[in-house]
């Protein structure tokens, strides 16, 4: 998918550039963009490293596990019958906690494990609601401290790089609610197929 998008970008650059007579600028932009990518990354690497270090401290201190325990009863109603499986819910709450704390290296492997467990608990066929709930939950962002974005803002000279946090929280909460609600409301429109008897 990304391959398609990237090629479309390059092709559009050429076509639009040719139509507007700006091909020289497009060529110059190639060198500028490649350089700028490295500049940007170097300027945010420091804060990315620092924050990742702090997050390691938090996860080793047992705080992440404590948050996960608190979250489990909150998450249970979203997963229906599958929430009776302790192992699945443990993985689900660990995944949500990792997302909240921005432990990006940890959240995806745990999330994939949780999805697999939920799938097995739901009979291992079709597209069970519990798995889709986890997937859509992961498609929304619930990160408490948007450290990478703050690093970019800091590198560009923002007065208070972290001052966007309340707005990020507000928008995150809205999007998570919409994702959960949309999942519920759209369910009847996308029914789960009945047992597949080898045919179809």
């Amino acid at each position, binding site marked *: *998918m*990304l391959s398609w*998008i*990237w090629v479309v970008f*390059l092709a*559009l650059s050429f076509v639009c*550039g040719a139509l507007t007579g*700006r091909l020289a600028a*497009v060529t*110059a*932009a*190639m060198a*500028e*963009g*490649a350089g*700028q*990518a*490295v500049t*940007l*990354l170097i300027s945010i*690497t420091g804060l*990315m490293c*620092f924050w*990742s*270090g*702090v997050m*390691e*401290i938090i996860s*080793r201190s047992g705080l992440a596990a404590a948050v996960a325990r608190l979250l489990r009863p909150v998450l249970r109603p979203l997963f229906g019958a599958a929430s009776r499986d302790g192992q699945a819910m443990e993985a689900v709450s660990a995944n949500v906690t990792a997302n909240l704390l921005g432990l990006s*290296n940890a959240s*995806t492997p745990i999330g*994939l494990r949780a999805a697999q467990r939920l*799938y097995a608990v739901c009979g291992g066929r079709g*597209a069970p609601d519990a*798995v*889709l709930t986890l997937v*859509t939950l*992961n*498609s*929304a962002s619930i990160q408490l*401290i*948007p450290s990478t*974005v703050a690093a*970019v803002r800091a590198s*560009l000279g923002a007065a*208070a790089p*972290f*001052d*966007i*946090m*309340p*707005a990020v929280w*507000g*928008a995150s909460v809205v*999007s*998570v*609610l919409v*994702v959960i609600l*949309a999942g519920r409301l*759209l369910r009847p429109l996308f029914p789960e197929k009945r047992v597949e008897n080898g045919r179809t």
Partner: protein
Amino acid sequence: MNGLSSALVPLLLAAAGVYALYNHVDVFPAFLTGAKEGLHTAIGILPTMVGMLTAVYMLRASGCIDLLGQVLAPLLARLGIPEECAALVLLKPVSGGGGLALGSEVMRQAGPDSYAGRVAAVMLGASETSIYTISLYCSHVGLRRTRYALPAALLGDLAAFTASAFFVRLLF
């Protein structure tokens, strides 16, 4: 609200350190392990950033991004999303590195504390690479159909983007 967010980060750092010491964590080596991981992450996204930011720069130089902004402007205006963020709305659900590259560019051009710059930052912070996430999870588990996952996730993205603009207007 502003006081809250500027107090929260130092407070969190101090509290995390004290709590970890209290729980007998060897804090600094733990920090170093995490920081090393952060460095790996940063190095890991560099190729994506180079590929996407270069393409975005070329696209912008060709006039294509402005054109896209103008085409989508009436629709985005109804949601309160600034024209500068038009391309970001389309790219972020597909590519995290691409979204970061494009969003950073909006912040740099419009200024990090401008309206468009702030909306771009909040959009990046409040949304995930939803389409990528769905395809990753579903292919890992082996789902052949994803039913309502994609429409629900895209509605969530739209809500995140609209709410980003709304909260920036509300709070700044």
